[in-house]
């Protein structure tokens, strides 16, 4: 059984190399990757996640406008009834910021995990496997209980 993740670069950002590498790595790790490419809108992410029943939405942003581009993103996902795990990664702030602040900002925006641009694809894959495991176990438990 494969698991589907939706991947894309948000806003008007066109940095494609990172998601090209991520696509390859997640595919190699056994995921079904729906790669929306660069310059993907919030709505496109939501539609694709819905259409493919994705278990995770992986947002990439490199160009420094991530915070603006992600305002209200989780509302858009919720409206489309998307209940996937959400990760964001890349160069998330303009300039030479402290990453811990950046992480807090994006967690407040609703992301489950925030990655900096030193992240190896393997780390993200490991995290996702853990997170999905937990989710599965929890939902199984719920199923058993109910």
């Amino acid at each position, binding site marked *: 059984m494969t698991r589907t993740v939706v991947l894309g*670069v948000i*806003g*008007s*950002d*066109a*940095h*494609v*190399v990172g998601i*090209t*590498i991520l696509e*390859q*790595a997640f595919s190699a790790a056994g995921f079904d990757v729906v790669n929306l*490419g*660069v*310059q993907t809108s919030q709505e496109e992410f939501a539609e694709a996640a819905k259409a493919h029943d994705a278990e995770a939405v992986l947002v990439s942003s490199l*160009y*420094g*406008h991530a915070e603006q581009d992600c305002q209200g993103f989780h509302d858009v996902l919720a409206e489309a009834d998307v209940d996937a795990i959400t990760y964001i990664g890349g*160069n998330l*702030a*303009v*300039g*030479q*910021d402290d990453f811990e602040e950046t992480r807090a900002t994006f967690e407040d925006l609703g992301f489950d995990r925030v990655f900096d*641009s*030193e992240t190896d694809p393997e780390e993200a894959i490991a995290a996702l496997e853990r997170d999905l495991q937990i989710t599965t176990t929890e939902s199984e438990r719920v199923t058993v209980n109910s």
Partner: protein
Amino acid sequence: MIRDERIPSDELRRIDDEIRSDWATGAAVDFDEAIRYHESLPVEKRFAEVLESADKPLLQPRAGVPRLDDQIELLEYLHGEGEADLLPTTIDSYTRDNEYGKAQEGLEKARETGEDTLNGFPAVNHGVDGCRNLIEAIDAPIEVRHGTPDARLLAAITFAGGFQSFEGGPISYNIPYTKEHGLAETIEHWQFVDRLAGAYTERGVRINREPFGPLTGTLVPPSIAIAIGIVEGQLAATQGVRSVTLGYGQVGNVVQDVAALRALKKLGNEYLPDDVCVTTVFHEWMGGFPPDEARANGVISLGGMTAAIAQPDKVITKSPQEFQGVPTKEANAAGLRTTRQIIDMAIEQNIDIDGIDEEQELIERETHCLMDTILKHGDGDVAWGTIKAFESGALDVPFAPSDSAAGAVLPARDDDGRVRIFEWADLEMDDDIKEIHRARLSQRAETEGRQESFRMVADDVDAISDGKLIGRPHSGTGGVGNAD
């Protein structure tokens, strides 16, 4: 059907009027008054003259912040402390998307909070007067650098605002920078930009135009970059541009980089009309940087060393903070001075490396193949041919995010670290050239004891940020033999 033909004057005026109504500041543009303004500028602010008369590579950083006074301070700093010869004004991403409303919001927020809420200088919003304040404040020529597919209003305002150099082109600011813009559309829009530059040129104000050579910045084979630069130069020349700076981004192999810069100059002069003054610009490594300023300084210096040998007319420097985000002004100036030091120490030395001529010849042959196929695709018309060649995949750019390019061609380094083509897809190329690439890459595969694969490409993408040139597998020592 779009063709490589000069836009007639009345058409130029019509479009000009139209696009200037896109945003309030467009109304302030008055062509004749602008000519007088340019004529009033001292010679040291005339971009083309300064660049074309230089006797050694001029250095230019990248830099743009939202507020005018901050931008002035930043450029003064880079000119003074960074000893930059030429200055940039990098435009923010909203402006690049023609979202002047969002740029305005960002600018106002920046003015209120003092924070850099935009990743560049929104020149359209600052308008003609704002631009002129900047031009007047800085004692050096300034170029507009952006990444805008439809840069017509930006050009109208910045030209009238006193800028005399403008980066970009219909391919180089489309394919690497956007997903959905069609090439026919961007060619049309850039024909206007070039025609406007040509109109200034006819009146004696030679606006310098600079195709963006590095494209996606990631292992772009030299001939692809050169062919696209030449096409953009030709399109610009047709519209009356007479000062063209062809660009190229460092791949990191010194022989290949020097060969490419020489080929760029030679082919540029060969393909562009005689009345165009062709200069060259070398971009220090445009791909992923190491997450460490000390190591980044090594990358920057290899670029400086290459520039000292190849002697392009201009070098665009990187900062040691490239990996992290927009650099502080201090780091930006440091990148300039590191580059300056190594260039100045090496440039008077006679450094002739073996094999440059051979590599240059290969690059030239490859570029001729690509130029031939473009013209063939367009029945002799370079504009149309470019569109068709990208459609068929005969012309392609690796890692292109754009729907207008196949993005199917894949590069990898050979055993010497030169960028070769691993997956040709539909790229047009003579078979014997393909054979050369194949042989070089299989030599590497053999050294590493593994198959050529996307994994090798991915390793090469990460290699420089991981501290090496070639993405060897982590186990074996690769091509380095056992010394005694």
